[in-house]
C-alpha cells in the first residue's frame, strides 16, 4: 500500500520531517566523518610500521598495538555507529511520516557519543586499552556510548511509535532489531568483561568472540541491509521486491547469525566451535536471500549510476554478500587451518566495515544531507569522486590482504619454512594495501569536506538571519517580527 493514498490526514510534509532531523543528524554525521578521517589516518600510521618499523619507535602512542586498535574502534564506534544511528533516525521519521520525536535527545546523545569515542581513543593511544576485542574502550567511555545509544534508541522508538501508518516496512524490522541488538550484546559483553568481576580464563575470549560476531556480522548486517532496503526502492522508484525473501533472510539472520564467532582453532570444548560452524553454514541462507532481494529490486532499473548514492549502496550490498560469505568461510574448520592468524581475517573485517557498512552509510548520508539541509551538496563532484576513491581504495586495501593471508597461511602450515619467512610473505601485499588505505582516506576527506562546508554555510545563514532580525528591530524600533527564515532556524 502506498503512503500517498491517505494524504488527506497527512499534516506534515517531507521538508518539515527533514528539518526536524537537521540538528541531530548534523551532530551525528559531522562527528562520524571526522572520526572516519582520523581512524583511517591512524590505520595508515599503524600500517607504516610494517614498511618502516622504526618510524614511530619513540612515540608509544603511535606504535602498532595502540594505533591499530584505536583505528579499528574509530571506524566502528566513531564512524559506522553514529552515522548509522543518524540514518536510522531519519528513516524512522520518514517512514513514520512524523517529525522526529524529542529531537533534542539525539543531539545531546550525539555529543555524549562523540565524547565517549574521544575518551576511548585517547585512552587507547596512551595504553589504557582493556585488551578485549572491540571492547578496548575503558569503562567510562563504554558507559557514555551505551547511554548515548539508549537515548538515540528512545528517540527512534518514540518516532516509530507515533507513526501514521501502522504497517511495518522491512527496513523497520532490521533497524529496530539493530537498535535492540547493540544494547543487548554491547551491554552484556561490557558487564562481563569490563565490569568488576570478569569471568576467568578462556571464557573471556569466548565472550570477546561472541561480541565481535554480533557487532561485525549481525549488527552491521541488520543496520546496513535495513538502510539499503530503504534507499534502493526509493532510488529505483519501485517497491521492494519479494518481501518473503526479506522476512526469511531477517529471521534466519537473527536466529543463526548470532551462533557464529568462535574460531575452529579456539582452545575451548569442541562443541563451541562446532556450533559456530553450524551457525555459519546456516548463515549462508540469509546472506543469499537478502542479496536476492536487493538484486531483484535493482534489476532492470534505469537509474544512471555514475558515482551517486545508488552506486554507493549497490556496491555496499554486493560487498555485504561477498564479505559475509568470506567471513562464513573462516569458520569452516578446513579453511580455518590455513586462514587463522593471517591477514585474511583483517581483510574480511575491513571489507565488512568499509566496503559494506561504510559504503552504504556514505551513500545514505549523501542522499539525506541535501534533503535535511534543504539545499544541494556544496561539492557534488567530490561526492562522486568519493565513490570511486572508496570503491577502488577498499578493493585495493582488502584484496591484497586476502590473497596475502592465504599465501601466509600456506607457508605457516609448512614446517620447513621458518615463521619469520612466512610472516614476511605478506609484506609486498601490505604495500599495495596501504595504497588502498590512502585512497579511502582521500575519499573520507571528500565526505568530511562536504559535511563541514554544509554545516558552516548553515551556521553562517543562521547568523545572517539573527543579524538581520536585530537590524530590523533596531531600524524600526518596534516589536519583534518573525521572518520566514527564523522559524527554520529555531527548529
Amino acid at each position: 500500500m502506498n503512503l500517498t493514498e491517505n494524504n488527506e490526514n497527512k499534516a506534515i510534509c517531507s521538508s518539515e520531517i527533514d528539518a526536524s532531523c537537521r540538528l541531530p543528524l548534523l551532530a551525528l554525521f559531522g562527528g562520524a566523518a571526522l572520526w572516519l578521517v582520523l581512524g583511517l589516518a591512524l590505520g595508515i600510521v599503524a600500517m607504516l610500521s610494517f614498511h618502516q618499523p622504526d618510524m614511530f619507535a619513540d612515540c608509544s602512542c603511535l606504535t602498532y598495538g595502540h594505533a591499530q586498535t584505536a583505528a579499528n574502534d574509530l571506524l566502528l564506534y566513531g564512524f559506522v555507529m553514529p552515522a548509522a544511528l543518524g540514518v536510522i533516525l531519519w528513516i524512522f521519521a520518514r517512514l513514520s511520516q512524523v517529525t522526529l520525536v524529542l529531537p533534542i535527545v539525539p543531539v545531546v546523545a550525539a555529543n555524549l557519543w562523540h565524547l565517549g569515542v574521544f575518551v576511548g581513543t585517547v585512552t587507547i593511544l596512551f595504553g589504557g586499552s582493556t585488551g578485549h576485542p572491540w571492547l578496548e574502550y575503558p569503562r567510562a567511555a563504554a558507559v557514555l556510548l551505551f547511554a548515548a545509544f539508549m537515548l538515540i534508541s528512545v528517540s527512534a522508538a518514540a518516532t516509530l511509535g507515533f507513526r501514521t501508518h501502522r504497517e511495518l516496512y522491512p527496513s523497520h524490522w532490521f533497524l529496530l532489531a539493530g537498535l535492540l541488538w547493540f544494547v543487548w550484546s554491547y551491554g552484556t559483553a561490557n558487564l562481563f568483561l569490563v565490569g568488576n568481576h570478569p569471568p576467568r580464563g578462556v571464557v573471556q575470549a569466548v565472550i570477546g568472540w561472541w561480541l565481535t560476531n554480533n557487532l561485525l556480522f549481525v549488527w552491521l548486517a541488520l543496520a546496513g541491509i535495513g538502510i539499503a532496503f530503504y534507499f534502493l526502492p526509493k532510488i529505483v522508484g519501485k517497491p521492494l521486491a519479494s518481501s518473503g525473501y526479506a522476512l526469511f533472510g531477517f529471521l534466519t539472520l537473527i536466529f543463526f547469525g548470532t551462533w557464529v564467532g568462535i574460531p575452529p582453532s579456539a582452545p575451548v570444548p569442541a562443541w563451541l566451535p562446532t556450533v559456530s560452524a553450524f551457525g555459519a553454514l546456516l548463515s549462508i541462507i540469509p546472506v543469499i536471500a537478502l542479496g536476492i532481494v536487493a538484486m531483484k529490486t535493482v534489476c532492470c532499473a534505469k537509474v544512471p549510476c555514475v558515482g551517486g548514492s545508488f552506486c554507493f549502496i549497490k556496491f555496499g550490498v554486493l560487498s555485504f554478500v561477498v564479505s559475509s560469505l568470506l567471513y562464513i568461510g573462516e569458520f569452516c574448520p578446513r579453511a580455518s587451518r590455513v586462514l587463522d592468524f593471517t591477514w585474511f581475517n583483517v581483510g574480511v573485517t575491513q571489507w565488512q566495515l568499509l566496503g559494506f557498512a561504510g559504503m552504504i552509510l556514505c551513500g545514505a548520508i549523501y542522499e539525506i544531507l541535501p534533503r535535511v539541509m534543504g539545499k544541494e551538496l556544496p561539492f557534488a563532484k567530490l561526492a562522486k569522486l568519493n565513490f570511486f576513491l572508496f570503491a577502488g581504495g577498499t578493493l585495493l586495501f582488502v584484496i591484497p590482504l586476502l590473497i596475502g593471508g592465504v599465501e601466509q597461511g600456506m607457508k605457516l602450515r609448512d614446517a620447513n619454512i621458518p615463521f619469520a619467512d612466512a610472516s614476511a610473505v605478506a609484506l609486498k601485499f601490505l604495500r599495495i594495501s596501504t595504497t588502498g588505505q590512502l585512497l579511502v582516506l582521500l575519499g573520507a576527506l571528500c565526505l568530511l569536506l562536504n559535511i563541514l562546508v554544509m554545516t558552516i554555510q548553515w551556521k553562517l545563514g543562521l547568523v545572517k538571519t539573527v543579524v538581520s532580525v536585530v537590524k530590523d528591530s533596531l531600524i524600526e524600533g518596534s516589536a519583534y517580527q518573525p521572518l520566514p527564515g527564523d522559524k527554520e532556524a529555531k527548529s
Partner: protein
Amino acid sequence: MSDENKNCCSPETGEPTATRSSAPMWIIVVTLVLLFTGGLFLDSHSGWFDKNVYAPYQSREQLESIQPKSGEKQLLARGKAVYESVCGICHGSDGLGKPGQAPALAGSEWVMAKGASRLAHIPLAGVAGAIQVGGKDWNMNMAAMGAALPDEDVAAVLTYIRSSWGNKADAVTADDVKKVRAEIGKSPQPYSGSQLLKMPE
C-alpha cells in the same frame, strides 16, 4: 506525488513500499538441506556438548579409548582387544557363540567356574569331541587358539570373558595361566569334555 510536497518541498518520490510475497519453496528446501548437513556435522564433531572433549577429538568414547588404563580396567581393555581378534570370530563379540560351531560364553558354566584352571586348559590345548555346555551337547573341534599367546594375554582374555555379558567370576592372573601351561607340556593335545570334567576347577 503528494500535494503537500508540491507546496513546500522539492519533488520527491514517496516512501518505499514492499511487494507482498511469501518465502519461496526452494530456499526453504535449501535451508532444510543445510540444517541436515549441519546436523550431521554437529553430531560427529560436537562431542555432544561434553565439556571435556576438545578438538581434534570428537566424542567421549574416543577420548576414553585413548586414555592410559591401569589395574583391572587395563586388564579388561587388553582382554577385550585379544578376544575381538582371536576368539570373537567364532564365539561372537557378544559372547553368544555360533550355532553348531561355537558354544555361547555368556552364562556358560565352564566360563564361570570357581577357579580358572579347568577353563584355561581350553584355549591352551583346544577341545575335541563331545562336551556339554549349558545343557546342550556339542561336538567340538577347537584348536589351541591361545597356545601362541603370552600368559598375560591369556589371563586378560579369560578375565574378560569371565566378567562380560553378565558373567561374574574372579579375575585370572598370568601365574594361573603359567601353571596350566606347565601342566599341559610342550606338545598339547586337545581334550575331550569328559577329560576336562575330571580336572579340578
